[in-house]
Structure formats: structure tokens, C-alpha cells
């Protein structure tokens, strides 16, 4: 382990980025789903910075209850404050906390990295919302209401503005679901927020094409008609999803695990889906081209959904790194394309890009 660490250090030489740390994460029995996502989040620099800032501001009360947010913040802080530049860290407390919090992740079974990411982000948001609420209640001099996790303060009839936490600011985007009744032509738009986009995939396609399909117009008819409020009846309609507010961090989940009805189980789709290092979203409502740059990929290794392994690729200071639990190595940018998938169903290459992390480049423009 130490050897691989120094190897990475040697490979980077004097190009080793100032202040950066590259640490592998120990596996506690099938926790690669967790490790791969943690690496992607750690190298999501705005997220990391805000988490560390949070940690710095909330360090004081030692009696404060441990939760996923504090555990994650502690882990990130532990990595970033290491004396050595490379090495291995055991995310023990964080993994224990995850297992305590959610029985799904308690066993030692293979877990889905996307489900874990979803769970984690939602938990973080919950914690931040509760804290913010508790803080508000405190400042509103209602000391009887102490944040103990069970408070349900917004049940007092007052319409509560949804809180925008820094987790939201990083990951949240807004989709708008436009439905046009084919009888009265009325367009009903319904907004929904998202932390990631789950895309259906096709063999030998690109992310661009999958995004296009995601936003393509779908006709609701036959069994699947739309209840039009204006017509007050079920009508044929056209539906399409557009991105109303592109997120700062665009997380794309490729639906590689598909339920096969005739098999009665999930199957892994090894399809070759190419993802560019730069991407633009053109399916936005504003018709503005929102540009993104790829900075992390969570890769599923294996041929089936119930077993296998997760690794991650991250881009840090213009270098690409490959993280496989404890191990970290530098890879060439061109190696990213070995994780696209297979053009043939049966292939020896089972390392497939599963969750893609893109960061918006728009911040510098506006």
C-alpha cells in the first residue's frame, strides 16, 4: 500500500499538485460501492470545499450528535489534512454510520453505488435542513425546541420556503415536465428537482444521444392517457422533459441494471455508451448551451448486477487518477475510453462507466 502510494507520488513528481492528497480507501467487506462514490465526491472540489468549511464551523460542540454529515466531513478533513501526500485511509466511522443509518447497506452484500449516492445526498440534505431549522428556532427564541432529530417544525401550517442548502447548490437541477393535451393544446408544466439524471441506454450510443432520448417527445395514448384539467377528461397528450435549471454538478446515472421480465431478475447491460470529456446540455428550456467538463466516473466492474466491484476515475488538476479501494494510480486521459462498455454482448472487458460526474464551466462566464 505504501509502495503504491509512493509510486503515485513518483509518477507525479514535481507535478504533484500543491496541497492535494490522493488516498486510497480501505474496503470493509464489499464497501467498494461506498469508496468509489466517496472518491468522486472528494474530487468534486466545490462540494469538498463546502463540506470542509462546514466542518470547520461546526467542530466545536463535542457532545454534538454524530451523523452522516459529521462523519463525512470528518473523513474528508482527515484526508485533506494528512501529512503524507498519498496513502490509505480507513473510512471506518463513516461506513459504520452508513450501516447504522440504513439497513440496506448493513449487510456485506454487493450494493448499488447509485443508490448509495442518492441515499447519501438526501441524508446530507435532511441533516442540513434540520440543523437550519433548529438554528432558526433558536434565534426565534423558542428554546423549548431543541434539535434532536425528531422535530417536525414545519407542521405549523405556515408554508415553508424550501431551504436551499449547499448540497442543493451543487447538485440540484430542475426538470420541467411539459405535457401538451392534444385536444385543447394546453401545456401543463410540472417542475421537479433532481440530484442526478437516470438515463436509459442503448448499444453503441453516446451520452449525448441518451440525453436526447431522455428529452424526446413521448405520446401518451391508449392505456396511458393524460388527465387534462382543462378538458376535465383523459386525453391523448404529448410529454417531454426539459431541463429548466441545469445543476452545477451534473450527475448522470446510466441505467445499466435492467429488470428483465422474462428472466424475473436484473441483468447488467454492458452496452458501449461513449461519454465525452466535455458535454453541453442542449435540452434546456432556455435554449442556452450549458457546458460541462467530466471530472469523475464511478465504474462498475463485473458481468452481473449482484456481484462485482466498483472503482472510480477522477480528474484532479488535469491529471486522471484511478482509485480501486486502497489503490490509487495515475492514468492517461485516453484510458478513460476503456470504460465505455462493450460493442459485443460477451466481452472480456467488464469495466463500465456507471455514474458520470460533470462540473459546469458556466461559473466563470457569468
Amino acid at each position, binding site marked *: 500500500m505504501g509502495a503504491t502510494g509512493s509510486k503515485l507520488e513518483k509518477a507525479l513528481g514535481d507535478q504533484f499538485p500543491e496541497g492535494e492528497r490522493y488516498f486510497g480507501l480501505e474496503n470493509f467487506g464489499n464497501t467498494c460501492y461506498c469508496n468509489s462514490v466517496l472518491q468522486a465526491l472528494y474530487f468534486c472540489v466545490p462540494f469538498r470545499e463546502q463540506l470542509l468549511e462546514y466542518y470547520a464551523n461546526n467542530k466545536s460542540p463535542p457532545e454534538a450528535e454524530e451523523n452522516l454529515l459529521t462523519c463525512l466531513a470528518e473523513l474528508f478533513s482527515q484526508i485533506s489534512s494528512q501529512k503524507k501526500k498519498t496513502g490509505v485511509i480507513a473510512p471506518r466511522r463513516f461506513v459504520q454510520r452508513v450501516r447504522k443509518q440504513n439497513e440496506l447497506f448493513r449487510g456485506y452484500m454487493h450494493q448499488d453505488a447509485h443508490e448509495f449516492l442518492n441515499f447519501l445526498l438526501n441524508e446530507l440534505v435532511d441533516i442540513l435542513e434540520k440543523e437550519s431549522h433548529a438554528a432558526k428556532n433558536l434565534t426565534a427564541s423558542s428554546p423549548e425546541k431543541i434539535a434532536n432529530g425528531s422535530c417536525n417544525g414545519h407542521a405549523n401550517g405556515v408554508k415553508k420556503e424550501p431551504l436551499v442548502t449547499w448540497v442543493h447548490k451543487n447538485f440540484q437541477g430542475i426538470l420541467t415536465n411539459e405535457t401538451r393535451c392534444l385536444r385543447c393544446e394546453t401545456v401543463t408544466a410540472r417542475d421537479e428537482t433532481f440530484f442526478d439524471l437516470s438515463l436509459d441506454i*442503448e448499444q*453503441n*450510443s*453516446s451520452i*449525448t*444521444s441518451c440525453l436526447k432520448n431522455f428529452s424526446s417527445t413521448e405520446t401518451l395514448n391508449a392505456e396511458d392517457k393524460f388527465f387534462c384539467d382543462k378538458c376535465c377528461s383523459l386525453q391523448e397528450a404529448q410529454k417531454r422533459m426539459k431541463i429548466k435549471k441545469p445543476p452545477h454538478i451534473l450527475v448522470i446515472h446510466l441505467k445499466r441494471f435492467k429488470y428483465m421480465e422474462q428472466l424475473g431478475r436484473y441483468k447488467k447491460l454492458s452496452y*458501449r455508451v*461513449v461519454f*465525452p*470529456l*466535455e*458535454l*453541453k446540455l*442542449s435540452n434546456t428550456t432556455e*435554449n442556452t*448551451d450549458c*457546458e460541462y467538463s467530466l471530472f469523475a466516473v464511478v465504474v462498475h466492474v463485473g458481468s452481473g448486477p449482484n456481484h462485482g466491484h466498483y472503482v472510480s476515475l477522477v480528474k484532479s488538476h488535469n491529471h486522471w487518477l*484511478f482509485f480501486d479501494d486502497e489503490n490509487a494510480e495515475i*492514468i*492517461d*486521459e*485516453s*484510458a478513460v*475510453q*476503456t470504460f465505455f462498455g462493450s*460493442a*459485443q454482448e460477451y466481452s472480456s*472487458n467488464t*469495466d463500465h462507466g456507471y455514474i458520470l460526474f460533470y462540473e459546469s464551466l458556466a461559473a466563470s462566464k457569468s
Partner: protein
Amino acid sequence: MMNSGVILAHLKDKPVQAQPQSSSSFGVSSGVRSAAARFLGGNGSKTLSFVGGNGGSKSISGMSGRVGSFGVSSSSSSVGNSNFDGKGTYLVFNVGDAIFISDLNSRDKDPIKSIHFSNSNPVCHAFDPDAKEGHDLLIGLNSGDVYSVSLRQQLQDIGKKLIGAQHYNKDGAVNNSRCTSIAWVPNSDGAFVVAHADGNFYVYDKSKDGSADPSFPVIKDQTQFSVSHARYSKNPIARWHICQGSINSIVISNDGAYIATVGRDGYLRVFDYKNEQLICGGKSYYGALLCCAWSMDGKYILTGGEDDLVQVWSMEERKVVAWGEGHNSWVSGVAFDSYWSAPNSDGTDENVVYRFGSVGQDTQLLLWDLEMDEIAVPMRRPPGGSPTFSTGSQSSHWDNACPVGTLQPAPSMRDIPKISPLVTHRVHTEPLSGLIFTHESVLSVCREGHIKIWMRPGFGESQSGNSDSSLSTSLKEKPSISGKAFSSSYKQ
């Protein structure tokens, strides 16, 4: 897992016309025009005929296998014959560590020659049909090494090694990054260019010594274009530093005046070869550009890349004039159909239609028409308001063409007219790497090294009376819809 096998498997090839005599038969006949019109008509889901293979039924289902594609392993039939005069048209392609040569006009199309490389894999090659004497075939390797040879000499030899080769950039002495693209400079008496994965291309002169002069100055600023010349008129004679990241393709206009490159940074760049100056260029919509091609008259450049678009660049306007939307994945090969002319064209320059094709990692072959008056209309609207990328003066903003020597930023989706393909056809099961138009057919190549030859409809029909049954066409076209029926669409 981390090796670059995927990259090596990419196949780039060039048809070769070994004899000037044979190329004289490549004129455009009126028969081909009408044939191609029918080929391109229809709804795009029709059955295309397939030339080649070992005879027998040519049903569409047979094409999913390897029937008729050039087997990689079938190198056993190497024919060596010192009396072999080499007349004919050949396909030169690389798979793995070898270059294969097939006779395009033979029935089985099995490679008649394979040349194996022991140190590194060949990754690109080029043929000069106008070479009066000496070396006409260039081969670039993964190691950066470059060879020039005589194709005929290779065909006359029975061995599996390159013979009579001039070896340049030996063991990567000048540049040890991968060769990515190689091209002869037309009308230059044996000059050629070799592009590398590190953003440089080198100019060589085949009449000069191959021994390397590795003393090019260090590139101070990787982001700046610069040209350095060798001191002692040795090969390579010049280094052009183009960009950061790989140059993915280099192509030269038919008159040898302009060099176009595309690369990892997503830019198309066009240079004046003689004056060593950047003329114009622009950024893709997003992502790297992977391929490019000149029109025969040098007025247009096609590019394809990771934004799934086929881009048409106008040399006159120095900007993108159309985006072809139709691929579901990256565009890996583009080519103008130089044998095509519009069915009703009367030879005037008005309303010229260009036909071109593209192949992609979606395994599809697409054919397109570019009709200038239809493209021009939407382009008359005022520019999208984004300032020019670099030095452009205030006035350049309003000019129709951007000033010489500047690069255009990525256009906005709404500012570029879109065109749709005439024909979309899934031609392989593997991602494609290139296509070639010949007089009577369209060739598609996939990255695994399989080549398929698609007959232009009608061509086979006219010959089927006196030739093999495999040449007969199974095309079911709708003659009422001609290629002309297509028009470019302009989306909001």
C-alpha cells in the same frame, strides 16, 4: 485493462490506385449518377446490396457475420511474385501488428499480402497515386516511427516484412508519441506530414536522408502555434506545434495549398502550407474532433467528433455553415463523394450540391447532401452576438467572414443550420472508423478491421448480366424519391 488496445484497434485505411492507368477509369459517367440517385433515394431503411464475399446469397442477415468482410486472420494467401506488375486497385488496412493489402477487384478480397511489424503496431497510412517513382506508401506506427515504401515492391515480395523501406523517426528519436494521421502533400515532389498524439506534426521530404535530426527547440508555450525548421535539411524538415493534446487527423487540400487538422481540443485549424500560417478554424460544439476531410474543390471541410455532429466548414466564410444531425454516437469518419454530381446539374456553379458520407461509433453509415442555396438562407441572419474568440476587431463582428488567422469559438446550437441525412444505415456491429467512396462503391471500415463494400445501386445491375451473381443488387429502392427530394431543414 489499461493498455491502449482499443486505440490500436482503430483502423484507418485508404484505397490505393496503384497505377495511374487505372485511375483514368475513375471518371464520372452519367450511368453512375443516376445509379447513385437511386441509391440515395427512399426512406433509409431499405436493404443495401453488398459487394464482395464468396458469392452465394447476399441477404441482409448475412452481413451481420463476417461474410464478405476481410478476415483478419486470412493472411495465408499471400501471393508473392516477382513478375507481378502490380496493376490494380488495392486496399491497404491495418489490424493489430500488421498491414494487409487486398485487391479491390478480386472476387474473394482476401488479403494478398500482409506485412508484420515486430516492434509496434501500424496505425495510419497514406498512398500517393501520383508518385512517379520510388516510394508511394507511408506507414505511421504507434511508437511514432514512420516508414515510406514502394507498394509495388511489397506486392512483388513473398515475405511478411516490409522491404526497401526508408525509416524515419527511428525508435521515436524525434517524437516518441503515437502517430495519429499521415498524409502526402499533393504537388510537392514527395513531401509528407505526420501528425502525433502530442499535438505536433512533422514535415518530411522523401528525397532527403532519413536519419533523424532530433534537435528541435523545446516548445515554450504548449498553447501557442509555432513552426521550427531543421537545421541541416534532414528529415523531418520541420515541426509544427499545433495544439495541446492529440492531433487526431490531418488532411491536405487537393492542390496542396492548405493543411487542416482536428484534435483533442475540439478545434479545426486550417493552415497555409507554404506560408506556414494559420488561416482560420473553429471549435466543435463540444468535445474532441476525431476526423476531417476536404471537398474536392477545397471550398469545404467536413469534421466529425464527440458532439455526434457532422460539421461543414466553409473556407469562404471561414466558419461553420451547417451541422449534420443524425448520428447517435461519435462521428469517426467523414468523406466527400468525389464521384458524385447532382443528377440535374448542368455544370454551372450555381446551386452546387455536394454529397458526403459519415460513419460513427453508432455503427451507422450516413449519406448527406449539401445544397448551397438552402444552407445560405438561414446564415443570412445576424450572428448570435457572441464576441469573436481572439484578437478579432470590433468590425470583424459584423463581417460575413471572420478575419484571417483567428479561431472561432464554439457556435451556439440555435445559430447553425441543421441538415438531416438522406440515408441512415447500420452497417456493422462494431463502431466504425472510416469510409471511402470509390467509383462504384462505398467502403465502410469498423475498428475491428472488418471492411464492407457497399455497391452503388444500379452499377451492379448493369453488370450483372455478365458477372458473378454476388454483384447483382438486392436493393429495393423507391425510384420516385430521388436524392434531390431532400432539403436541408433549419431548426429553431
